[in-house]
């Protein structure tokens, strides 16, 4: 269910100021995994005692609805407390996983009232049916395809491959990674003499890679469901380095200047590194003379 901007016909904890105190995540949800499954842990600060009593008496339960569009997965997990430990087999989910945490009625409640209702609801009583919400705790998303431990690596969202039918390099954005496709001869040169050579990395980043990244970002909207786009979105949404760009909604406005700044930030100042490399090469050449 889409909770944001929703107005219920009765007061719901966590929606506006219908009921207080508003619940919140105690800390950021944690994700761990073993070979077979993921474990998602989330805990909430929920201090409304009337609702707490309804849960204890079996009229309501803490529920987490989990959806994974890629695998048509949609399930509910329950808890008797505002702490969830949700274990899901790895082979049941893929891509972005959405979690929605609520306190849901499981047995009919007649004449529901709560001393913490907003002024507007004081004196009113409500009959609630199974499935109705007593509280909305929060939402969370996690992308199981993103390699979170390798985010800062350019390789997490870009690759260089061979384009055997090409006569000039081309970019392909419709793959999990931004694909820089090189004609065969060029690709052979890249593989044999350039790839893995630290002297050339900064030059490649400031030319081929930066070009491809800017072109991809300017077309971000058309490819927002690809893994590379989700990876970049995650970095922009969560890393302090991108705070300013985040404030300017860079991935929504796609303003050219902002995109160029974003690309350079993602590649950690490629022009600066290029100039340093060129200077070093110049020094080395002078020494050889």
């Amino acid at each position, binding site marked *: *269910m*889409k909770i944001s901007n929703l107005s219920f016909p009765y007061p719901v904890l966590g929606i506006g100021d219908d009921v207080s105190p508003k619940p919140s995540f105690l800390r950021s949800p944690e994700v761990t995994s073993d070979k077979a499954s993921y474990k998602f842990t989330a805990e909430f600060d929920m201090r409304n005692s009337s609702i707490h009593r309804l849960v204890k008496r079996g009229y309501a339960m803490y529920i987490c609805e989990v959806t994974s569009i890629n695998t048509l997965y949609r*399930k509910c997990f329950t808890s008797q407390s505002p702490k969830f430990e949700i274990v899901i*087999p790895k082979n049941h989910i*893929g891509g972005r996983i959405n979690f929605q945490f*609520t306190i*849901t009625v499981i047995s009919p409640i007649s004449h529901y009232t709560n001393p913490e209702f907003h002024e507007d609801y004081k004196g009113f009583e409500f009959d609630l049916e199974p499935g109705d*919400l007593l509280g909305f705790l929060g939402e969370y998303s996690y992308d199981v395809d993103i390699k979170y431990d390798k985010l800062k690596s350019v390789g997490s969202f870009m690759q260089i491959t061979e384009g055997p039918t090409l006569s000039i390099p081309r970019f392909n954005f419709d793959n999990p990674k931004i694909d820089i496709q090189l004609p065969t001869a060029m690709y052979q040169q890249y593989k044999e003499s350039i790839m893995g050579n630290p002297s050339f990395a900064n030059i490649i980043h400031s030319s081929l890679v930066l070009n491809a990244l800017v072109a991809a970002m300017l077309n971000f909207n058309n490819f927002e469901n690809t893994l590379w786009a989700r990876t970049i979105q995650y970095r922009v949404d969560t890393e302090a380095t991108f705070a300013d760009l985040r404030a300017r909604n860079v991935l929504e406005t796609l303003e050219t200047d902002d995109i160029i700044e974003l690309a350079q930030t993602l590649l950690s100042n490629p022009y600066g590194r290029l100039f340093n490399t060129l200077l070093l090469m110049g020094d080395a050449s002078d020494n050889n003379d």
Partner: protein
Amino acid sequence: MSEEYIYTTADITRAVNLSYIQLKKLLFEKGVVSSLTGEMTLNDDYKDWGKPTFNQFMKKIIFMWNDKGRNEIIKIVGINSNESTKKKNQSTFSNMQLQQTFKTKYADSLLDCAKNGSSISLYALDIFPIEKENILYIPSIRHPEGLIDKMIPSIEHDFESAVALYEAYQDLSPLQAADKSFWVYLAHTELFSYVQQRFNSVLDPDFNNSQYVLDHWFFAHGPLRHALAGLWWAVFLSVDENADGEERYKYTKFLFSRDINLRTIYLANYPLFRHKEAAIGILRFLMEDEELCSVFFRQRTRYISKYFNKLGGTRQLVSLDRNFFYTELKKIRPQIIAIQSEEDLKNSI
């Protein structure tokens, strides 16, 4: 018989069940080719069997054969019927212990060729030409024997085909089933003849409809409308794991018994149908109400989807079991029966 050069030598070797070297040796002994080594060069009397041709699919010039060349070679080798050739080639796949699939990039290239129309004519062939070096093994899935024989390519038998496919791939996890490359592989290799006969417009002489190929061999409209993935997911979403034997599939059978759009659009494509309890509750209600389903079925099932969509806006439906959905539909039955036209549906809710 077509003059077009559409068969690679690999197609011919598969058709006659010989290796390339064995075939070339035989053709050399019969005087068809002039040399055992080097490029394929036909002697004068056989020049109209094949020639170097630009292959649209592989994007390079290779030696290609026409219908005459293929048929004459088959006669030479001694295999006369297309049917036995097809079965022989199908059994070649079933010799493998592990299930195979395509590399993702190769599946994407097949999609590109279908989109630009360059491979459309290939969907009319007995066997779709593929590059074997782009096949991978899936270590965790056993290859099922004889599946092609259990799948009957007609809409009336979609249920039986779906159950056969689902049971053949019992080990398939949802994550593996979400892998498009796997279904593209099956649709172009082991189950190619099934898909081709089930969606046989490709066999019309004037067929030139890329979208048709994209709809059934690929995922133009999502997994539920793919010729094979759609069957598997429809069973997955409706099978009752709490029941035994044939009873497991009673809701699936109903899902397949009506308008195909029931399982591809009206119900199965709605997010709520991912909740198994909702799916079973709704299907049970429909199964038991012959009168309600006898007329305006399409409009009434769409009404049901709309109703629960609206209800789900303020209620946590995924927390509710099949009895809720069944009982709720019983409660609103008069409203459902009142839907007797598109106009009624449009004006409802």
